[in-house]
Structures are given as structure tokens and as C-alpha cells.
């Protein structure tokens, strides 16, 4: 019997990764992303893995795809000329936002520019109230009157976002009909469909973002699908969403905003699968690349989910400096520090790292391409955390003297330190930033950090993971095999899933089981529609209510039990969730529900972690080299191992380096590394 043949494609900003799972083996290709038409690189990568595996296109059972194209279009502002149609009197909500400055002490900040400029924000005469009752009927002539301006303005995509349309979408739907008749071919996004949730700024911002990328993404996805067909791939083609589930092309083309964070989501799914494989209840997923790092908490083998995300945080990755979108996302904290982040000394004599990055050209000084800035990678090079000749898979030779010169010039000389101490300082500042972000993230969600296992992937994570684990008091670190294509591998492990939201306000003092049933049925039908077309497997239903005490500003997500036919069930579920977050409840205060969500998901697919596909040679120390040990604050001589040559069961005491093509794992002196049967590196901290 022919073994399975599943393929994942992750189109990133720089590289397109393609992974083919055939039997218990994985075949991977990494090609440069082709900006003009990203499909080209994908097809090249597909060809490579098919020929590596020796399988014809007809063998492919499924193709899974994640992409940063939507995100890039939003950040680089290369989407469609987009108009907004709003309720008369409210067209500026999308720009006024929260009317605040995200940075208190900088009078020079710019507020995020909306995707729909004011001259393309039009109004129609209509008004709903919060209960969805029509206060002013839609004046259809006010819609007709917009047609010339849309045409003359070169508008190719329209977002319709009316006040309280989450409660009653008929006016938005009628506007879509009129536009369909009068401007055929116009791409139309209804806010009440993409995000039927109270809070006009966030909802309209989401609708505008969806409208902005819709023509581009829908063109790309359909081209992709037809190219696959032309090449003989007759299998289903599914898209990875930011919420960690897979969805079909039709849905992705309608709601492309749901694809924005699909790459990082793949990574979090990978970490979740590792948690499931190894039976770990509490995992700390740590992804550190060239410019940023991402942290995600994984409890009970599932990543933490949320509905709030901000695209393009343009001011030092600061909250509030980007555009909010309300979609199902895997909750992650993003830190503006990666391997390429630049270190400098501020006026107070403090070392600062990031968020400015040296990028890939010229890159860190140690790349030897003329970079003069001292980056995190340079500090790692000075501390002996790389094997010079195998750097970047042997593609380039690491220029350690250049790294040292940069660290000397930009940091050490300013602080009257030697270069090793300065490099240590840079590393410590980065690691401390990561640890602080992790603590804050955990505190924000009321989740403990202790006793988590840290899963490290992405090019820069394995160098820093042990030290960050020490700072957080974590005892175990896992560096999975193929950490460099972690996102694509994660996609292979993702379920088919779709989440729907509805805002239907309800106070528990006015509990009405029939309303809940009605909302559920409505959401279930919509989710079934999407998921049913992509899978025939049995589905698991998850429902949440977004609840708060009356008068509070923020809702909390409350996972609901199957039956919600009695008010006590909702109150108990709310109080349990509230207690977990805040430690106490408030007796006697009424509770209100702002929104409801329902998700349908298939079980996770059968998925095998790759085995080591090389013949095991002797686990030889290839090199000895000087390495700065942050625990002892001293330079020590450490052995360097080549990861591919390490057989399962090998035990390596720190300090040591384990080198592979895409990254290097630093085993500090308090850790002992063991190679697990599948090839994962498991580092455990010694007692005391």
C-alpha cells in the first residue's frame, strides 16, 4: 500500500518553505519567495520535494498553505484602493480610534493611518440601535448616489460598516445588493459578516483590512488553485488561518484577513503537537527569528486563543501603534528582538537592543557584508555560540573579528568594558527582555509560568533558550527537529477548523435560553458550511461567551459546557474563568454577555514526527572551542557537536554547542542535553 503523501507550504517574507510528509519521512525545500508572483516559488518548491520523495503529483493527498502575503500587503500598503461606506455621522470612527497616544512622552508620534483615507469614506442615511431595531430606514438613493464617486475614485474594493449592524445586518446586505447591481465586479466586504461584533472601531478596522487585501488574495488563491490543477495535483487545497485551523479556498478568498498570522500559527501548532506527543500539560512556545520573537502559552496541548490582534505595530512594536483586527488568532506576544536586532548604549549608559534590525543586507557585522552595527548575532558570535565554518549551513563563513569590532565600537568602548563582557551584556538584555515579556504575558492572562517546558524554534531561539529558561525558572527545553521549517511542519498537524462570532447582548438577570439556542444554531450552520466542504471527519464543537460584570470595560473569554440551558451554568462558567484570571469573584453583581463564538474542528490529523533519516555515525566531537558561559561568567572550552551525527540516547553535558544547518543550540553549564528517539534535543536543568 502506498504511504501517505501530505504537503505543507509556508510562504514567508524571505523564504518559501515546502515540506512533504511521506510515510515517516519529511522532505523539505527552502526557496526564495518570488515577490512578483509568489506562486512561482511555491511551484518550484513543490517540484523539488516531489522529486526528492520520488512521488508524482497525483499521489498528493492534501496541500496545506500558510502565507504572509496578506500581512505584507497591509504593512507595505500595497492592497486595493478601498472605500468605506459608513452610517451618516460616523465615518471617522475608523480613524479616531481610541483618541489616545500610544506613547506618553513622545509628542512626535503618528497615529496609525487608516486603510481607507477620508476622501474614500462615504456615508449613507440609515440608523440601527443596539437591539438591531431600525431607527432610520436605509435611504437607497443615498447608496446610489455614491456610485459615481466610487467609480471615479478608482475604488476596487468596498468595506461596508454600519453602526450596530452586528445586531441587524439587513442594511449592509441591501447595500451589497445595490453595489452588485450598479458596480458589478466590485469586491465588497460587509463588516457584519467578517466580524459581527460590537465596538465599531475594531469591527470597521477589520472590515477595511479584509477589503484591502481581498482582491489581491482572492486572485492569488485562485491562481494557486488552478496552477495546482494544471500540474496534476488533484487533491484538496486548504489554507492555514491565524486561529490555527485550516479552511477552504472559497472561505479564505472571502475572509482573507483570517490568514494574516498563519505562519506563526503554524509554529504554535507545532509546539502544541510536541506537547501532545510528549504529554506535556504546560508548554512555553518560543519562536525567535531575525527581527522578532514570539511567545505563546500552550495549556492542555492547545495554544491559547483570542480574538484581538494588531497588524503592523509600526512604533517599536508598541501596543496601539498598529491596526486592530478582530479575528480568531492564536494569542502570542511579539517582541521586537531577534538575531539581527541592533544593540546600542543609551544616554543613561544602558545597553538597548532592538527593535531596529540590521535585516539581511548588510546584516550583522559577522556576515562580513559590510554591516557595522553590533547585533544579537554578533554578540552570540563573540561569545563563541557558533561554529564558524558551518554558519548558515556552510553557505557563509562567520567573521568573528568583525563581530568583535562591532561590539567593541558600539557597546564595549562606550561602557569601558571588554568585548566579551559587552557581548554578555547584549545577550543578557535580550534574554531579560524575553523573560519580562513572558512574565507580563502570563500575568496578563492569569496563567502560571512555572513548570512549563520551553519549546524553541526559529533561527535564533536555540541559542538563547537555555538562558531564558534559567531566568524563568524552567527546567526543560526542547529543540525540535527541523526547527527551521517549524511553521510548515506545524501545518501538517493542524485540524480543519472554523470559528464564528455573534454579538447578542444578554444580562444574566434577563437570561433567555431560547436566544442562546437561536444564536448557536445560526453560528453552527455557518461553521458547518465552511468546515463541511473541507472535511468529512466528525467535528468537535467549542463554544465561548465573552462576558463581564456589568459596567466593566473588558470581557473575558469563557468556554461554555455543552448544555447552556440554565442561567447557573453560565454564571458558574464565568465565575470559574474570572477566578482563574483575577483570583476572586464579586458576589451579587450582575453579569453580561457581549458576544458568543462557536468553533467546529476536525480531530488533529494523524501526524508523525520525522525520524532521523541519516545513518547514525559516531557522535563525535567535531571541534573544541572557546565559549562564554553565562552561568559561570567565564570563557570555557566547550565541545561542538554536529546535530545530524547525534544518535538517539546521546547525552551531552553543558557547556556545549550542537550545530545544524539553520541554527545552533547552546547548552549552558547548568543543562544536560539528551537526543530523543525522534531526534529532538531535550535539555534538562541540573538540580540546584
Amino acid at each position, binding site marked *: 500500500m502506498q504511504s501517505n503523501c501530505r504537503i505543507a507550504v509556508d510562504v514567508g517574507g524571505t523564504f518559501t518553505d515546502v515540506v512533504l510528509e511521506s510515510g515517516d519521512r519529511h522532505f523539505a525545500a527552502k526557496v526564495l519567495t518570488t515577490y512578483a508572483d509568489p506562486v512561482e516559488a511555491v511551484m518550484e518548491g513543490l517540484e523539488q520535494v516531489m522529486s526528492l520523495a520520488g512521488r508524482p503529483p497525483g499521489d498528493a493527498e492534501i496541500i496545506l498553505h500558510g502565507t504572509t502575503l496578506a500581512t505584507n500587503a497591509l504593512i507595505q500598503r500595497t492592497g486595493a484602493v478601498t472605500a468605506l461606506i459608513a452610517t451618516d455621522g460616523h465615518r471617522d470612527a475608523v480613524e479616531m480610534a*481610541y483618541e489616545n497616544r500610544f506613547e506618553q512622552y513622545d509628542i512626535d508620534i503618528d497615529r496609525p493611518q487608516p486603510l481607507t483615507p477620508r476622501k474614500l469614506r462615504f456615508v449613507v442615511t440609515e440608523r440601527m440601535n443596539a437591539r438591531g431595531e431600525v431607527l432610520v430606514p436605509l435611504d437607497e438613493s443615498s447608496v446610489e448616489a455614491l456610485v459615481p464617486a466610487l467609480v471615479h475614485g478608482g475604488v476596487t474594493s468596498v468595506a461596508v460598516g454600519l453602526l450596530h449592524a452586528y445586531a441587524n445586518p439587513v442594511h449592509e446586505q441591501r447595500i451589497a445588493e445595490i453595489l452588485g447591481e450598479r458596480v458589478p465586479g466590485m469586491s465588497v466586504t460587509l463588516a457584519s459578516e467578517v466580524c459581527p461584533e460590537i465596538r465599531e472601531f475594531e469591527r470597521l478596522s477589520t472590515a477595511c483590512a479584509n477589503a484591502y487585501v481581498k482582491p489581491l488574495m482572492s486572485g492569488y488563491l485562485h491562481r494557486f488553485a488552478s496552477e495546482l490543477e494544471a500540474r496534476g495535483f488533484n487533491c484538496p487545497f486548504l489554507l492555514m488561518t491565524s486561529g490555527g485551523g485550516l479552511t477552504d479556498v472559497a472561505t479564505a478568498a472571502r475572509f482573507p484577513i483570517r490568514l494574516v498570522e498563519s505562519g506563526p500559527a503554524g509554529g504554535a501548532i507545532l509546539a502544541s503537537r510536541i506537547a501532545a506527543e510528549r504529554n506535556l500539560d504546560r508548554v512555553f512556545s518560543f519562536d525567535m527569528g531575525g527581527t522578532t520573537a514570539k511567545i505563546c502559552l500552550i495549556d492542555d496541548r492547545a495554544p491559547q486563543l483570542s480574538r484581538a490582534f494588531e497588524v503592523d505595530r509600526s512604533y517599536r512594536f508598541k501596543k496601539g501603534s498598529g491596526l486592530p483586527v478582530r479575528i480568531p488568532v492564536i494569542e502570542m506576544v511579539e517582541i521586537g528582538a531577534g538575531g539581527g536586532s541592533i544593540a546600542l548604549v543609551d544616554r543613561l549608559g544602558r545597553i538597548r537592543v532592538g527593535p531596529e534590525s540590521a535585516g539581511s543586507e548588510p546584516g550583522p557585522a559577522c556576515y562580513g557584508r559590510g554591516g557595522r552595527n553590533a547585533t544579537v548575532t554578533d554578540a552570540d558570535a563573540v561569545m563563541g555560540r557558533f561554529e564558524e565554518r558551518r554558519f548558515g549551513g556552510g553557505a557563509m563563513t562567520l567573521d568573528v573579528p568583525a563581530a568583535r569590532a562591532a561590539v567593541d565600537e558600539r557597546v564595549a568602548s562606550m561602557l569601558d568594558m571588554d568585548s566579551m563582557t559587552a557581548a554578555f551584556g547584549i545577550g543578557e538584555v535580550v534574554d531579560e527582555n524575553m523573560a519580562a515579556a513572558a512574565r507580563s504575558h502570563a500575568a496578563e492572562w492569569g496563567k502560571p509560568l512555572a513548570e512549563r517546558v520551553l519549546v524553541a524554534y526559529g533561527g535564533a531561539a536555540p541559542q538563547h533558550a537555555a538562558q531564558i529558561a534559567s531566568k524563568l525558572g524552567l527546567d526543560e527545553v526542547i529543540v525540535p527537529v527541523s526547527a527551521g521549517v517549524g511553521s510548515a511542519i506545524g501545518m501538517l498537524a493542524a485540524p480543519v477548523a472554523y470559528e464564528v462570532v455573534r454579538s447578542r447582548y444578554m444580562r444574566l438577570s434577563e437570561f433567555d435560553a431560547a436566544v442562546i439556542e437561536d444564536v448557536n444554531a445560526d453560528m453552527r450552520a455557518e461553521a458547518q458550511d465552511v468546515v463541511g466542504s473541507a472535511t468529512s471527519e466528525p467535528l468537535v464543537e467549542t463554544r465561548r461567551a465573552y462576558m463581564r460584570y456589568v459596567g466593566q470595560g473588558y470581557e473575558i473569554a469563557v468556554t461554555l459546557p455543552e448544555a447552556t440551558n440554565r442561567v447557573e451554568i453560565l454564571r458558574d462558567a464565568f465565575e470559574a474563568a474570572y477566578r482563574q484570571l483575577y483570583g476572586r469573584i464579586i458576589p451579587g453583581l450582575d453579569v453580561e454577555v457581549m458576544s458568543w463564538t462557536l468553533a467546529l474542528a476536525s480531530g488533529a490529523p494523524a501526524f508523525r514526527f520525522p525520524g532521523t533519516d541519516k545513518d547514525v555515525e559516531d557522535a563525535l566531537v567535531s571541534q573544541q572551542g572557546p565559549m562564554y558561559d553565562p552561568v559561570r561568567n567565564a570563557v570555557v572550552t566547550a565541545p561542538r557537536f554536529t546535530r545530524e551525527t547525534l544518535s538517539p540516547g546521546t547525552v551531552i553535558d553543558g557547556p556545549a554547542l550542537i550545530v545544524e544547518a539553520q541554527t545552533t543550540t547552546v547548552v549552558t553549564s547548568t543543562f544536560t542535553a539528551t537526543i530523543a528517539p525522534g531526534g529532538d534535543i531535550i535539555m534538562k536543568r541540573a538540580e540546584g
Partner: protein
Amino acid sequence: MKGKTGLDAIRTQLAWNRLLAIVEEQAQTIMRTAFSTVVREAGDLSAGVFGTDGSMLAQAVTGTPGHVNAMASSVGNFLARHPLATLRPGDVLLTNDPWLATGHLNDFTVVTPVFREDHPVALFASTSHIADVGGRGFGPDANQVFEEGINIPIGHLFRGGELNQTLMDIVRANVRDPVVAEGDLYSLTASNAMGGEQLLKMMADFEIDSIDAVGERIVAASEQAMRKEIGALPNGTYRHEMDVDGYDEPVHIACALTVEDDTIGVDFDGTSGPSRYGINVPLTYTEAYASFGVRCVVGNDVPNNAGSLRAVRVTAPEGCILNARRPAAVSARHALGQMLPDVILGCLEQILPNAVPAEGASCIWNPVLLSSSLAGAGDNTGGGDFVTNPIFNGGTGARPGKDGLSTTAFPSGVRTTPTEVNEVTAPILIWRKEYLADSGGPGELRGGLGQVIEIAHARGAPFEVSKMFDRIQHPARGRRGGGSGRAGRVYIKHGKELKGKGKETVPAGTTLVLETPGGGGMGDPISRDPAAVRADLESGLVSEAAAKESYGYGGAD
């Protein structure tokens, strides 16, 4: 021993970073757990850690600069009343006294000493705005602080870990929403406890049994950086004056900013005397907004702590409206306090002309909308009781090289609540909320725009509006030839003008209109880039008439 001292420097920096992270986490805990909406949504709170000598080592950057050094000095007041030696583990102190804490009764400050093996090692303090503290309710109409609500002198909220039930009962008995008040006091207590735990963990990680040495270095480095920056400014005294609306009569604010070597002195001699209404400002709050004004431009990247705050001294003559004496009414002290940075910036413009924005709307517009069957303006038409306090903003002043920000809070950092949420939580309809064309002060760089807001009762019932607005008679002035922003307005649609301060009734079936003020412009409007004028015109931010009149713009060129 280059390596050794280098390592010490790095360890100090890491400890500093950790302290900053701890107070941010402390603030986040309050944001999450507070009951008052203004704390949770708007960020009206503060959090900080203090050394055993009462000097502030780190403070979270939150939504309000109004607590900047108000909190720093309040901990000194706590320690004067209860010296550290008299405190035990489990003790938690509390006050909301406007003169001892942060300027009005709504702000409750909680201070908690942290002990390591029975030795005090630090104190954590936190403040948040509790929506109701009894009295007349939040607003400027009182004549004495006694009318404004309950006043808790500095005392124990917890003693040795045990709640002072009598005190809690007194608080609960004197406020309209005891659940919220109690919840917020627990929220502050819990945030300090969380900070204390994190500090002890940090001390264990760093293997230190005191943070005094680290504290001294933090304070010294910050003070040095601040003084170095001030030292680069030319010595001299720079004066600036500004008139604002006041409650029933204009208030004159006079300011002299003196640079003397590495120190800045700010003095408000010549400022108006006290008001009969609740817009008086205790000195502690004057200090906060005055030093924030300085810090926006001088040393804005130096963290707030005892060292950086020490380099700026703020004084005001005893008894003037900016150094109000008991028992002056102070509830709406923000209306005047938020105006102070504009005055300070007017002084600094004389030495740093390219770093200072024009005047802005500055004071937030936060009407209290209410209907109460017990109050005079009773609702006899079935509208039901409600109270809600939305926040709206005007424009900021034009900035060197950039237009002002439209409808954006400055100097306050609060966030607004969405129209849809305002309409769910109270029986009101906000029919219009959009930019007000031509409200930005003309200039080569344009002031930010204000907005127009139209609010009606959802069922046409009458309701009351309590106002604390400014810049209705005294618009934000431009700089260097830039024009003033448009003045604010409050009126009944198709009806009469309302006053900027105090409580009035919006009659049945009518609509309340607020026009928030625009920011001042900078530079001669005639020199504005025609492309920028055209863009404003196309966007409807500037009308055709104004483009022609203010900017001399003749259409396509």
C-alpha cells in the same frame, strides 16, 4: 578589574529593567482587576516601587501623567505618618486625601511595605480613580472639598494581613457604588502584593538582600542624565502666560521657568486666586502636570524616579488656584491641571523653538450624562435612571515638522469608549461623532481637528449633563504666526448655548451638541505646502472658503 566592574554595571542594568517590568506588571494587574471603567478602559491609574527611604525607584507609564510625581511625594507623606519602623508584614496603608495623595478624592492610593525575612526592603504604591466617592458626585460644582465625598486620612486598610473592616464599612457606607469601591481597593492591594512577590523573587535571582545599592545607582544615573540635558540649556528665566475659561470667571496662569545650571525651576507666581468651585488644584497635582510638560521636551526618555524628578522643582504661591488650600473644592482639578503643559511649553519654546508644539485642546471633554429620579431634573417620562461618563477629545497643537493630531488626548493619555458600547450601557444615541471641518488652527503646520458630537436620549426623555470643559472662551493659540484652533462649544441643537462648566438640563426631545476645540497652528498659513492644503480640502478637513481665506489657496495650481 575592567571585567568585574563591567559585570556589576550589567547586573545593575538588569535589576533596573526588572524593576521597570515589575511596576508595569503591577499596573497591568490593576487594569485587569479594577472595577471602575475609567481605570480599565482609560488607564487612570499608577503604580510604583520605592526604596526604604521613600524615594521612588520606578513607576509604570500609564494613562495619566497626573500621578507622575504626585505619587512620588505621597509615599513620603505616608512614611511621615507611619514610619517604616512601625510597619509590619501584612500592613497596607490607604488614603484619598487630595493634598496627601493625587489631588482629588476619587484617587485612592494604597501603599504596601515589602519585607524580606522581617526586614523592610521596599514599598509598593498604587493609585486608581474610583468612579464614585459619594458627595455631589464627580463634577466641579462643589464649593468645599467636604461636599465632594468621603475623605480617608492616611491609615491602615490591612493590619498584619487582617482587613480593617471598620474602615471598609465606612467607605462602603459613603459611596453610591460600594461594590465598585471595595473591588477597586482590593485590586490596588492585590497589585502591590504581586509587585512585592516579584521583587522578592528578583532579589533571590540576583542573590541580593537589599535593593538599596541598586536603587542608589538608578536614581543617580537618572538624575545625572536629566541634569546633563538641562545643563545644555541656556541659563535664564523664561516667562509665559495663558488665560483659560475657569468655572465662572477666567483663570490667569502665569509661569516663570528658570534654568539654573543643571536645574529647572517652575514657578506660578502671578496666577489667579482660588475658585469658589471645584477646579482648584492641590500643589501635588500642579507638580505632576508641570513636570510632565517639561519632560515631554527635556529628557523624555529618562524614566521617572526620584533622581529624574529631583532636577525639576515646581512651586506656586500658597493659596493660588494652583496651590489650593483646604478646604477648597478640587474634584475637577484636571480641567486646569491638563492646561499646565501648554504654559510650560510656551516657556520652553523660547529656548527650544524646534521642539515645542502649539497649544492644544488639552483638557479632555468628559461630560457626565445622567438621569436620576431623585435629582431635580427628574425623569418623569419613563427614561429610567442612568449615569455614564464618556470621554471626547479635541485636537492637539501643530508640532515642529508635523500637523497636530486630530481628536487625540494630550497631555492626558486616556482612551475613549466606543459609541456602540456607550449606547448599550446607557439610554443615549450618539447621532453624530465626526471631525469638525476648519477646527484645526491654520498654519504652515495645521493644528489637529476637534470633533462634533450630537447626543440625544434614546426615548426623548430629558437628562442632565455635568460639564468640566475648557477652551470655549479661550481657544488654543498658535505659535510663530499660526492661527488659533477653533474654540469649543456646547449647545442644544437648534437651541441655546450651554456653559462650559457645571450641571445643566438637556430638555425632553432635544439634542445636546458638543464641539471640542481644535489645536493651534504653527507658522504662517500662507507658507503651507499647497499639496497639503489640497489634501485637506479633498478630505474635507478644511472647507473651500477656509482654504481660500486662511491659506490663500486658489484651487488647482
